[in-house]
């Protein structure tokens, strides 16, 4: 059964075994195929959340600027490995994004339904709790990928800082600008 599914499923369930035993892939699109899959799922989710349907123009447009997300992930990977990662490493690392992609699909499914359109405090708590669980799950998978707590922390420090600065950096930029006298 597992052999019919993508490696993401194996990595989600048994990351240590999967990373050790998965055969090495090759191909022209190896560098970008999984980052692009991540962008596709994310932007499809954004389209569902906003319009309640799959809008090709919206998915296409959001895919352009949301491609910053895999780029900051790759930057974090480069920092952790202290070299620019080659295609096989990028492909393998992005196999570990299954929990977050599953979360995006579930969140988009719920929030684009009539029941989930208006958030209640109970729902915020529910999705917040799920997000924390996914965060821990994802950390566990990436720990198995790096096989080092130090590398995992370095990856998180670089990629999450970049993500926060771009996605939610208003305050950060204001503070930084003020302190630098800009």
């Amino acid at each position, binding site marked *: 059964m597992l*052999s*019919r*599914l*993508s*490696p*993401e*499923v*194996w990595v989600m369930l048994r990351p240590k075994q999967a990373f050790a035993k*998965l*055969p*090495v*892939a*090759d191909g022209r699109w190896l560098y970008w*195929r*999984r980052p692009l*899959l991540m962008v*596709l*799922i994310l932007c*499809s*989710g*954004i*389209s*569902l*959340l*906003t*319009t*309640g*349907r*799959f*809008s*090709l*123009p*919206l998915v296409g*447009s*959001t895919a352009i*600027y949301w491609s910053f997300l895999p780029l900051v992930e790759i930057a974090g990977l480069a920092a952790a490995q202290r070299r620019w990662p080659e295609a096989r490493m990028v492909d393998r690392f992005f196999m570990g994004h*299954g929990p977050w*992609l*599953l979360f*995006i*699909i579930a969140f*988009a*499914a719920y*929030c*684009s339904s*009539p029941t989930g*359109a*208006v*958030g*209640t*405090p109970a729902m915020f708590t529910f999705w917040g709790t799920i997000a924390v669980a996914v965060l821990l799950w994802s950390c566990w998978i990436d720990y198995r990928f790096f096989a080092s707590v130090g590398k995992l922390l370095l990856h998180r420090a670089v990629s999450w800082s970049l993500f926060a600065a*771009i*996605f*939610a*950096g*208003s*305050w950060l*930029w*204001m503070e930084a600008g003020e302190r630098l006298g800009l």
Partner: protein
Amino acid sequence: MRATAVLLFVAAVAGLLAPAPRMSTPARMGEYRVLAGDFHIHMFPLDEATLAPWDVVLEARRRGLDAIALMGHNQVWTAKVGRWFSRLTGGPLVLVGEEIITPAYDMIAVGIEQNVDWHGTAAESIAKIHRQGGVAIAAHPLRSYWPAYDEAAMAGLDGAEVLHPMAFAGPRFAAELRQFYERKPLTAIGSSDFHGTIYPGFSRTYVFVREVTEQAVLDALRERRTVAVDRDRHAYGDVELIGLAEANGGLPRSGVVTEADGWSRLSRAAALAGMLTALLCGFKRA
């Protein structure tokens, strides 16, 4: 990947065939043009929002909004990009704004061109907004924000969000927004505080203007010529304008979640199936 491609193709075609959602706003009532507005919309990047300014403008137009205020958290440049794009493409009227986020209060500044520093008190921020010719609106003024709105702040404040997604999240929040709005005569504002969920215009403000310009919208906001209608058809705003609206068949309600049409439902289902298939069966083991 073939199954994913087929499912997403179906989703895209069904999405294309889905009719645009339209809330019919009467174009004219008495001496006024009535504009559907949403004065609290955020954008990517920097503001924890998913859509870039141009996508927000296009979505606002699709949702039938005539006037919007785009705003960054403590910055205005993304809103200026949105205004530029809307003018270029003949989109809705775009007012540049800022949501001034502070530990004590959040405030919407509509119709400004320069950042308002977020370190001041509410009264100081209001004075700075007014100096730029803007309008100061209390953003989702729940009980925790009330201490910041002292006598000096209330004296200068122009409006308050009486309808906001929080108002539909529970009766306690709705009551707190209403109580703040009733403190003094304020411009009634219904806004979506759009970040990525729900949609621009989920909660909206009807603005009564004499001409369709940005300045006319600002004047109407300043002179309390607005009406916002909640789910229970309770209207907030100028009493005469509420009467005028009722005499003309009423205004659409905010916060109403309508059943999606068949094409949208098909598009959503196919997209979700496609996303799941892509993740679970997308790339086989090498």
